[in-house]
């Protein structure tokens, strides 16, 4: 305890006199705020687009409703009749399903720029946006996105190195190592305490910066829950601890400052760039991303095949697959070419056939994703990066969840329109106010996953420290 006090006192004095340390800490805060502004700009743009989509829908809705206003003129009555037709409603008023951005989104943009984030839902499905490919290499994300998670995942380790690389070598080169040994018994006790001070200093700065950014977020992007901030801060703390443990281990190898820095940078490059790059290349070689043009040609072939089928077969297939609409079936009308049930059956059959092939495509992607996830499961850099993105609601799972919600909503919309369709009934103005509305359910915090990654980081840090302790106990023999 006494040693801790003595070394911390010395380090605190040095801190105030070593301007580069203060400069680094100020730089970290500045870069973090800049990252928030930068990524916030991207999120703002997206939110504007969200508003624009919803506003456009409202404008279209008002326009269609206005068509019911004129009941006197013949043209007015014709327009009103047309406006109430199911096909026209489906065409004029596709329902917007938007993946809203969470308030934490500006902290980690993740797949915001890569994945589709809204769908205009009709009673028939679009198949163009079904294949999802994750971006698992943080360096690829880094090329397009500058956000706070990037600062934490990439830049913070570099700062750890800057704070630690010369701790042993500088003592040795300045002759203080032998003095520390003679005075204290083991110079590494002092070096360990100095490293601990720097860890706490960087931790405090990171946590204060996180708190500052959350405060800015809550004023600019809506309320941010305290729990998210705690998890984010906890993850930051253990990630920082991991890199300090790496640095401590490397310091205990007792190499010169240059060699120590080179080893540190090599470890960082390996975990942050090389390993993810190799894993992605390996996964690409084993499970290449299938081309979507196969889907389009398959769709063409299926459409022609169904079109060539007898209307009665198509209608029957619809009835078999959608028994909830059998009651309204009328064989005399339904078996006619281009009947409502035939059209519904056409799209229903096409969707069923398309989903089979899309699922097989998706399985290939899933196999690739699983392989990547498995190979990178022990990489603290990618794990932390993915978790930050998950907490911010911008990871692949969040987008996939949005598509599932949109699919469910599509069924709901279908269920709303089909009864009118099959009864050959037009919608009245009051029916427009009964439209189902897409309500995006935001993903909750993935507590087990966060805990798992935090524990693995903590465990890795402890193992590294234990190994380092073994090294540091072996005295370094002077060769002079």
């Amino acid at each position, binding site marked *: 305890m006494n040693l801790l006090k003595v070394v911390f006192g010395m380090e605190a004095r040095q801190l105030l006199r070593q301007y580069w340390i203060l400069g680094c800490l100020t730089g970290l805060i500045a870069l973090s705020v800049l990252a928030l502004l930068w990524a916030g700009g991207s999120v703002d743009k997206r939110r504007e687009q969200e508003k624009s989509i919803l506003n456009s829908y409202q404008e279209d809705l008002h326009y269609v409703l206005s068509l019911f206003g004129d009941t006197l003129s013949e043209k007015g009555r014709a327009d009103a009749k047309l406006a109430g037709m199911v096909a026209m409603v489906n065409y004029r008023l596709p329902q917007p399903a938007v993946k809203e951005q969470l308030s934490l989104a500006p902290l980690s943009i993740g797949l915001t720029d890569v994945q589709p984030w809204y769908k205009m839902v009709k009673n028939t499905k679009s198949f163009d946006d079904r294949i999802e490919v994750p971006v698992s290499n943080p360096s690829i994300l880094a090329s397009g996105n500058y956000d706070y998670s990037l600062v934490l995942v990439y830049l913070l380790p570099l700062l750890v190195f800057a704070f630690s690389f010369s701790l042993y070598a500088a003592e040795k080169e300045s*002759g203080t190592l032998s003095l520390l040994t003679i005075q204290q018994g083991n110079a590494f006790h002092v070096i360990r305490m100095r490293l601990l001070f720097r860890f706490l200093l960087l931790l405090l700065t990171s946590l204060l910066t996180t708190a500052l950014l959350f405060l800015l977020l809550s004023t600019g992007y809506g309320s941010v829950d305290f729990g998210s901030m705690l998890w984010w801060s906890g993850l930051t703390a253990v990630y920082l601890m991991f890199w300090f443990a790496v640095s401590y281990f490397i310091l205990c190898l007792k190499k010169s400052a240059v060699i120590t820095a080179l080893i540190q940078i090599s470890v960082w490059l390996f975990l942050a760039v090389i390993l993810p790059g190799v894993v992605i290349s390996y996964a690409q070689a084993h499970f290449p991303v299938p081309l979507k043009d196969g889907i389009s040609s398959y769709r063409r072939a299926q459409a022609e095949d169904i079109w060539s089928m007898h209307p009665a077969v198509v209608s029957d297939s619809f009835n078999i697959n959608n028994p909830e609409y059998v009651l309204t079936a009328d064989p005399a009308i339904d078996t006619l070419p281009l009947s409502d049930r035939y059209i519904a059956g056409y799209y229903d059959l096409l969707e069923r056939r398309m989903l089979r092939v899309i699922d097989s495509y998706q399985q290939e992607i899933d196999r690739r994703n699983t392989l990547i996830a498995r190979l990178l499961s022990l990489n603290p850099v990618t794990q932390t990066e993915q978790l930050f993105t998950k907490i911010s609601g911008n990871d692949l799972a969040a987008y996939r969840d949005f598509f599932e919600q949109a699919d469910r909503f599509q069924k709901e919309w279908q269920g709303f329109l089909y009864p009118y369709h099959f009864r050959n009934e037009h919608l009245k103005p009051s029916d427009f106010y009964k439209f189902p509305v897409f309500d995006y359910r935001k993903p909750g915090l993935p507590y087990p996953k966060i805990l798992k990654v935090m524990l693995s980081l903590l465990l890795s840090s402890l193992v590294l420290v234990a190994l380092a302790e073994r090294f540091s106990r072996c005295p370094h023999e002077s060769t002079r």
Partner: protein
Amino acid sequence: MTTPALEAIKLTKQYPKHTALQSLDLEIAQGEIFCLLGPNGAGKTTTLNLFLGFARPTSGMARIYGEKVSFGKNNTYGKVSYIPEIVQLYGNLSGLENLDFFSKLGGYHYGKRELKGFLAKAGLEEAAHDRWLSTYSKGMRQKVGISIALAKNAQVILMDEPTSGLDPKASVEFTEICKELSASGKTILMATHDIFNAVSLATRIGMMKQGRLVKLLDSKSVSAPELQKLYLEMV
């Protein structure tokens, strides 16, 4: 018979490609100033390292007040102070702060007045006490190193080339301080190239060559020119 302050018994240090120290037998009594003289590679620093426990002896042993020095163990550190050849210390701490830090590491908590007293005793002028060490000359740093040794109040002080790079005035001041330390019962073992300093300071001089102690001289029995002649003949 009193226990020697420092004792080497058949002390040998071999590296894979050369022998740094060959069967050194030496006894240094309390209060002595013993200078090890010799060219580079003679084994002077190796001898100091073996007494400090910074190197593992291949055979033989070193003792401090009868206690065996063990490599990497701190059993004798309480009895020893060390002034390395390069005393850089922490450049952005003042002389006073450096002394305070190292004293506290050694378990000594002195007040400011006492610390200043040690610095003054080591010959560092008061105006420099609160200046950053990065502004100090080598001689001034050396004095801080001495003050650290003084503050530790260790019985034995080991010094490696302490006068190299010092100007004549600083060198004379250093000699006086060492004599005072000796008079107060401290034992000093010093590795040096400085023949004149060795003659004026030491009680005994050991001349080393290629890891062997080839000559042991009483400093009173030899003058500086004679020692220089002997040294040159030996080299």
